[in-house]
């Protein structure tokens, strides 16, 4: 059995995913970096069978699992009555069901290592957002999943979540394109609505996850941390 503690990070090719791999790596985690497509740990997590197989491949390769960071996400937007049904369920089944399938497949391994789970929710899951009904529902569902599994899996496994606000990732370029403005304008538009007057760096969001994963957070379970620059006070 490998002696380094092993973390599975999903969505590892994305803006936040890359920072998670770097941040957890710097904190001495051995990382299985899962992606949607390509590489040894590719999986479409909306499919329960592929989630099971991903966990099996991680165990086969590393012999153990100490941390699951469910960071993968799908995102589309549309008005609720014109939202294509397949797209709506694709978002919910990727983000919420996929995280559930992973947790279910990982739980026996995490019990052995007395490990932890961190779900990446979103500020929009807390506040809701127009035309983001699928995304917001999926991310709010992760908050519920966090609270349910924290109670069920204690004391062996700690389960927490983060609900970040706007992060400086390539998605912003997409948002700017959709709004027909420059990237700089997009950033300052978001920043204006945030008390700290800026958007988050991926690095500081990854640091919040690294904290929840660490022994410093050994007394945290069922909690949602909100690194969002002060936009919400709600839970």
């Amino acid at each position, binding site marked *: 059995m490998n002696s380094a503690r092993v973390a599975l990070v999903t969505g590892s090719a994305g803006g936040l995913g890359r920072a998670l791999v770097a941040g957890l790596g710097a904190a001495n985690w051995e990382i299985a970096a899962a992606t949607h497509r390509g590489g040894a740990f590719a999986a479409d997590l909306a499919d*329960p069978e592929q989630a099971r197989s991903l966990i099996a491949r991680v165990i086969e390769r590393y012999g153990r699992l100490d941390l699951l960071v469910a960071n993968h996400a799908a995102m589309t937007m549309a*008005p*609720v*009555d014109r*939202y294509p*049904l397949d797209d*709506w*369920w694709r978002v*919910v089944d990727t983000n*919420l*069901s996929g995280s*559930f*399938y992973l*947790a*279910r497949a990982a*739980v*026996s391994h995490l019990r052995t290592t007395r490990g932890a789970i961190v779900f990446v929710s979103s500020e*929009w*899951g*807390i*506040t*809701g*957002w*127009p*035309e*983001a*009904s699928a995304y*917001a*529902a*999926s*991310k*709010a*569902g*992760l*908050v*519920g*999943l*966090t*609270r*349910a*599994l*924290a*109670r*069920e*899996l204690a004391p062996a496994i700690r389960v927490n979540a983060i609900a970040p606000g706007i992060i400086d990732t390539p998605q912003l370029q997409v948002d700017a394109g959709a709004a027909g403005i420059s990237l700089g304008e997009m950033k300052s538009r978001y920043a204006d609505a945030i008390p700290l007057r800026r958007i988050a760096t991926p690095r500081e969001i990854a640091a919040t996850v690294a904290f929840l994963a660490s022994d410093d957070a050994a007394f945290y379970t*069922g909690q949602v941390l909100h690194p969002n620059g002060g936009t919400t006070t709600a*839970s």
Partner: protein
Amino acid sequence: MTATRDSVALVTGASGGIGRATAERLAGAGYRLAINYLTNRAAGESVATALGGRAYCADVSDPAAVEELVARVETELGPIAIAVSNAGVYQRVALEDVTDEHWRRTLRINLGGAFHLTRAVAPGMRRRRQGSIVFVASELALVGSDRASPYVAAKAALIGLGRSLARELAPEIRVNVVAPGPVDTPLLPDSERGPAYTAAIPLRRIGRPEEIASAIVHMAEAPWTTGAVYSPNGGVVIQ
């Protein structure tokens, strides 16, 4: 007021405890009732008959069935002013024992039911510039519960859905969420209604369906309330 009191209210899962009580209260307030049920036809028909409404069989997890339900109600009874997404299923299962099908079905009914209903009623409500939608979630979504991860996740997702839709569908349509604590209906297992359980509830008893119905109808009719989550729960959650 969002609706004149001779307009139509649709309640899903109105063959069950909370749905039936909600339908009764809405009928008492003057609404014409569309009573949705799935398997319990006898209950659905008898509620409809008692309230002078109509019963409609439809599976809320099936988007086409819900479209047809809404179309039939609006043809036969008139435009829907109030839609209550109440149909739900609850089963306690440990994480490792949750089958793919159990997960899927819980999500499709408890979350999908509300999504399917909203997408079917929203265009008409928007056109008429009036409408009110209430989702029935659960107090468990706020605090979690062991051996109920599919239910808790689906009900928490429902709260996020309600908050999104409240923003999206304003100002014409209001969307609110009621998150009941344990209530005396067939859904609640014996293990969650005995003395050991109620001793941990500040008000020392489980709720009555009428006590949830009054909250649902209040939110449905409150003209300046949208995106709110109200949890009548006997004090189980105080936060």
